[in-house]
């Protein structure tokens, strides 16, 4: 009877596999060394954590949180949502347009258009790689404190995110139906919107929903640098060590993010189900 030989553990290049593992362990050790991670320090500071928790959850006392205060936080929360929604919408539209040109061989197909495609891709990367807090600081400087700066930040962030993933989704679409249309005389522009975009739609919707979730999370912290929303309230309360009211805001943020994430995953499932019928 013929019996198959057991293959070696690291394929046919045992030395390379072994070295890869060693390298990974060395890099990990090096990074933990630099990260200042320390169990002792974490345990030693439990006193401060306890103090924060004690002051954050005081005995119930209606004088601590007035209705006026709560109303103000509520308005700030609404503003956060509005900033995230408006910014995402603008970012989706602009990101989609840029993605059309960043997508390989989609709108044009010539050596010269490669340069255009590359430039648009780089522009999108620039939007994506500069962190949102940095954009927020820039926009606060340009348009001043408030929600508008936050909306612009969310927009730029969304362009960076959606520009990249929209382009990849459209690149992944099977081009044969687009080719069949162009073989029958359709313009390139029409084949993109009649054949490629419809085929990419489920992916585009899913990505948009993820973008909105991301925008909600980042719009919360934008207030820290003065770009509108509830983050500003949170920061000032933390500065005054009003941990109890800070906790109220953290709770509100938690609920907002949770609701948006649940809704977004509900819609994503709806899209999936529609595709499987």
């Amino acid at each position, binding site marked *: 009877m013929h019996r198959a030989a057991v293959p070696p553990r690291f394929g046919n290049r045992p030395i390379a596999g072994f070295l890869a593992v060693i390298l990974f362990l060395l890099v990990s050790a090096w990074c933990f060394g630099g990260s200042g991670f320390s169990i002792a320090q974490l345990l030693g500071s439990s006193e401060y954590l306890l103090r924060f928790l004690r002051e954050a959850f005081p005995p119930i006392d209606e004088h601590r949180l007035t209705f006026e205060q709560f109303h103000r936080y509520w308005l700030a929360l609404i503003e956060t949502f509005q900033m995230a929604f408006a910014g995402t919408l603008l970012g989706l539209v602009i990101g989609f347009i840029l993605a059309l040109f960043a997508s390989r061989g989609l709108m044009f197909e010539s050596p010269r258009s490669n340069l255009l495609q590359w430039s648009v891709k780089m522009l999108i990367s620039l939007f994506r790689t500069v962190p949102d807090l940095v954009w927020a600081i820039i926009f606060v400087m340009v348009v001043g404190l408030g929600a508008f700066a936050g909306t612009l930040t969310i927009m730029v962030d969304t362009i960076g995110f959606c520009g990249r993933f929209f382009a990849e989704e459209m690149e992944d679409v*099977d081009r*044969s*139906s687009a*080719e*069949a*249309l*162009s*073989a*029958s*005389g*359709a*313009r390139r*522009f*029409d*084949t993109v*919107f*009649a*054949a490629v975009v*419809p*085929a990419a*739609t*489920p992916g585009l919707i899913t990505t948009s929903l993820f973008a909105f979730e991301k925008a909600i999370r980042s719009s919360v912290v934008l207030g820290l640098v003065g770009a509108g929303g509830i983050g500003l309230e949170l920061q000032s309360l933390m500065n005054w060590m009003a941990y109890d009211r800070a906790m109220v805001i953290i709770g509100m943020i938690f609920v907002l993010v949770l609701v948006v994430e649940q809704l977004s995953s509900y819609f994503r499932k709806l899209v999936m189900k529609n595709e499987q*019928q």
Partner: protein
Amino acid sequence: MAAIVTAEDIAMSYGNTPILKGVSFELEAGESLSLIGSNGAGKSTLIRCLLRLEPIIAGRISLFGREIQNLKPSELRSTRCRVGVVFQRHNLVPRLSALSNVVHGALGRNTQSFGSMISGISLWSHITAGRVHRERAMECLDRVNLADLAHRRADSLSGGQSQRVAIARALMQDPDLIIADEPAASLDPIAGEEVMGLFSELCREAGVSLIFSTHNISHAVDFADRMMAMKSGRISLDGRTGSVDLQALKAEYA
């Protein structure tokens, strides 16, 4: 009668591998031509060259008396829109309805002016298309007996139904020539027979010329007036279907 397709000694290669090595033929208006030959003989490549989906490196190709190699993009489009195209599969946009896919057949018509650019946008889907186009698309679906599936998504259709929708889209173009690359190859024998029958019937009715490739000799015999066999990038046999004897055909596949 004037030839509507003329290929003169065309050569084509993928990289350094020559695929077509001097192919010449003419097709008269109203003629139906089958292309046979073993795998890799170059049938699909020839078809793609005729549509200028691949560039040729030597020779000349004319469609309707215009040499397609040197056409400007807009002229190429207006030539292409007179040719209906059906590939072996993946012809349709999967997430759109059968009706929308048929409406797409009108995209190639008169794309020259600015006004037509706007009306082109309305043809991306049947929802936005004008009444004339929607009605015409329904007529075309009806001619392939699929009017009752107009709103079914293309990816929920069977192979045979998809190919019939592709034929309806070709009819929507009101073409003078239909070129099909193994249109029945992914279908079962009965659906394949149906699709081929539809082609030859519609072409005969409307006086449309037809070129199709196939591995099914009986399709070639039953549905075309003329037969052309290819062998490693050359035409090895070309004649009226009735006059080609089956022994010679078997030899072409050897």
